[in-house]
Structures are given as C-alpha cells and as structure tokens.
C-alpha cells in the first residue's frame, strides 16, 4: 500500500483548484457516507429549536458576529443534513430574488381584514406590570374617594332619628340674582309648531312653565360660598 493514491485522492477532493478535473463520483459518495456518525438528521441549528429559522436567516444575511458564526459552523460540521438545509435555504433565497412577485391587492386586503387582532395580545412583562401598578393606584384612589363621600353622608343606623340635613340645595338664582335671568313663559307662536305624533313635547298652546330654572345646579356643596362679586 503506497500513500500515493490517497494523496492524489485527497489532493483532488480537498486541495483541487477551481475547474480541476472530475472526481470519481463513487469515491466522494463513499467518503461522504463514511464520514457520518450518529443520526445526522437530528438536532437543530440553534439550541432553542424555535430560534433556528431566525438564526439561519441571520447566518445567510451575514448578520452574525464571529462567535455566533463559529457556533453555526460547529453545528453544520456535525450534520450533513444541516449543510443540506443551509444550501437549500441559500438556493431558495436566490430563487426568491429572481422570481420577485407582487401579491394580489385583493388577497392582501382580505387577509388583513381576517387576521386583524380583535383584542390586545399578550403584552411584555414590564408593560404589563406598569398597567397593573397604575390600575392598583386608581382603584385605591377610587376606594378612598368613596369612603370619604360615604363618611360625609353617613346614614344613622337608628331609623327613628330623623336624617339631619347638612346642606340644602339652593338655586344659583337665589345666590346670584343679578347674574341669572328669571324664567319666563315662552311666547306663543302665531303658527303652530310641527311635532311628531309620538313627541312628548307639550302641544302648542299648552306650554307649562318650568317650576325652577333649568340652569340651577342640583345637589349639595356645589354652590360657591363666596359668589363672585362684580
């Protein structure tokens, strides 16, 4: 056994210059098969299988740093199946670049309408935490406000005791007689106004005067204690 034939074989296989002569197909086929060990189809390009496609895209786009690229080389060197996968993806991207087609507009519109998210999808944890935090503050403020109001309006438990009136609503007209116009009965129109059959408005000629000014605020503690002086 002389090393010459093997030297020659290796020289042609691995050291051959571009355009060198053909190699015996059977030799390379046998050597390729002989180099395999384990299950060459198992395993992913990335530790996390879900990252494999993103990693492959980054590898093919030259977006990996040296360390990450070496990691990919290491994985490829362990599995001919992955080398095939990379070569296939590379060829596919090349075919994509030369085929470049425009998506039908009607199809795109229909798909957008169909997939439009109806609800907010899962949010990142930080944002989610912020929402909960501020929601909690809002709830606390609301509860506090309710307690204050209830405290001020506390109803006596003894129903026999009459409810003490803390404040009586007073009309703005009473407080600021110069600033609020007094109610007047609307003038009768010479021509009857049209009203729908189902209208609850008073029919013409039967207008009743409001019992109090519509501008008067209701409730308590809304009237300023010190009316604006002119």
């Amino acid at each position, binding site marked *: 056994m002389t090393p010459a034939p093997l030297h020659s*074989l290796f020289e042609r296989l691995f050291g051959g210059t571009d355009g060198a002569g053909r190699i015996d*197909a059977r030799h390379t086929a046998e050597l390729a098969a002989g180099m395999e060990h384990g299950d060459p189809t198992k395993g992913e390009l990335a530790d996390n299988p879900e990252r494999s496609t*993103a990693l492959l895209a980054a590898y093919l786009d030259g977006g990996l740093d040296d360390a990450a690229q070496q990691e990919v080389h290491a994985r490829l060197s362990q*599995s001919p199946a992955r080398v095939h996968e990379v070569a*296939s993806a590379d060829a596919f991207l090349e075919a994509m670049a030369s085929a470049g087609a425009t998506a039908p507009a009607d199809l*795109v519109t229909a798909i957008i309408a169909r997939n439009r998210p109806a609800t907010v999808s899962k949010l990142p944890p930080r944002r989610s935490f912020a929402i909960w935090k501020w929601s909690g503050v809002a709830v606390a403020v609301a509860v506090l406000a309710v307690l204050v109001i209830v405290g001020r309006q506390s109803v006596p438990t003894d129903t026999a005791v009459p409810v003490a009136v803390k404040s009586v609503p007073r009309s703005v007209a009473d407080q600021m007689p110069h600033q609020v116009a007094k109610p007047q009965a609307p003038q009768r129109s010479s021509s009857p106004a049209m009203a729908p059959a189902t209208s609850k408005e008073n029919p013409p000629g039967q207008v009743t005067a409001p019992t109090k000014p519509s501008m008067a605020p209701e409730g308590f503690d809304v009237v300023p204690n010190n009316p604006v002086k002119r």
Partner: protein
Amino acid sequence: MTTADDRALVRDVLDAKPQAWDRFVRRVADTVWTACRLLTCDDAEARDAFADVIDGFHVDGFHRLRQFDGSSRIETFVALSARDILAERMLRLFLPDSGVKGWTAFERFFGADISRIIARRLPGVDREHIRQDAYQEISVALISDDYRRLKAYRGIGSFTGFILHMVDRLLIDFIRHTMPSRKPTVATMLSTKPPPSWEEFPSDLPSPEDALLEQEGDRLLSMATQVLRQAAADLTEAERLYIHIALGGGDPIPAREVARLMRRPVEEVYKLKQRVMDRLRSSLDKHPAVKTWRASV
C-alpha cells in the same frame, strides 16, 4: 425601510399597536406571495397558502414573529419562515388517500433541491441520462410503501434537512450500485469513437483483473475514510465543515461556492483548503498502513 424600522414594526405588532398588523402584512406580502408561488403548484393554491402563511405568523400570539431580532433582513426571515410553514402544510397532505396530490406538492417543494443535489454529485453534460435515472429512482424510493420514508419524520430537527439528507443517501446508494469504480461510464459509451468489434465488447461479468482492481479500489476507499475520520477529529469546526461541503460534489467545489456557504471571504477559504490538506497529509503519513509500507521499502 431599514432593519431597525422593521424591528420597530414587529415590536409594534407584538405590542398590538393600532394598525401595526396591517402595516406588517403589507410590508411582507410580496415576499410571502413570492414564496407561495415558488412552492405551490398554481395560483389558486398559492392564494390558500398565502392565507396559511399569514395565519402562521399570527397564531399563538405572534409566536414565530417573536423570533425576529433584527439580525437579518425581514425579507430573509419571512421567506424562510414562510418556507417552514409551507413545509408543515405540505406534511399534512401526506395523509392516507393523499395520493398524487401529496406527491405533486412534495415535488414542487423539493424538486429543485433534489435536482441540485444530484447535479452536484453527478456533474457533467455527459451524465444527463444518469441524473434522470437517479431522479426517478429517488422518487420511487420516496413514494414506496405509502411514503414510508417521508412519514418517518418525527418532528425532530428540520424537515427540509431530514428530507434532503435522505435524498442524498438514496443518491449515494444509486451511485454505489450503478457506478462501480471500473464500470465504463456513459461518456465512454457515448463517445464518437468507432464502435468496437464483437470481440471487443465487454462482458457483463467482471474479469479477474477488474475484480482485483475493484477490490483494491474498495480497500483504498476504506483507508481514505479511516484517515479522514481520524484527521477530522483534530480539525477545527470550520475545517470539518469544509470537508463536508467538499464531499458533497463530484467536481472539486469552487472556493467561491464554499465561501458562499460558509459566509466567509474567498481568501480565507483558500487558506482553509491549505490547512486541511496539510492536516490530511500529516494524518496519512501517520496511518499504520502507510507506516507498514514505508518500513517494507
């Protein structure tokens, strides 16, 4: 749009910002559509496939989209993701009674890859007939027993890698049984030399001389495999990868093609070649069979 813009767009989609999903679909629509047209048989199927791919990005809270980190162009990421989704879709066609439909989809998906692998292992214009035979034989093997080989995929590792590796193994088997080392090639059969006389026609049975040469050839291959495996253990990952790539072809693979697959500069690949050859020479010299021969002379 820049990659940073695309990354921001994907982030907006994940954050469910108003209109972000619409903008994303419009941004990737042409890429997805091109992938669908390439990997499906006709326009009607491509439209269905398009909807499936977009759904594939949308489901499980944009699960696939979350993997995009801006380290590639969005077109590349979307094209490869679309291919994955369409591969899964195609797998569903291999149900009982899928019949011709399943195979048609398979061939549309992998036909170009199968042809590329065959062309690399069996290069040359004179081998066109052998390549066609190889394609037929591989197809028959994949279809046989109700797609037994395809159905053997258990979801571990890449489906594309699984299929293409299987295709390569079937091709190697084809080469082994149709192209023994000493058998005349189609090139010699198709040569323009005058036909041989009846006495000169080779017999189907190997002559004792041929049998010896084939035996010697097998021994040589076995030795080469041992030396290679031994040497590979001491090689760097990049050097080992170079060997894998080089063993995928019937012609020495041009350095620029190796560089393309490895995403390294061509000059680096030339240096890599040199280092690999030095290591192999060294391993060869240390091999027991060679040492024995040296001692005997």
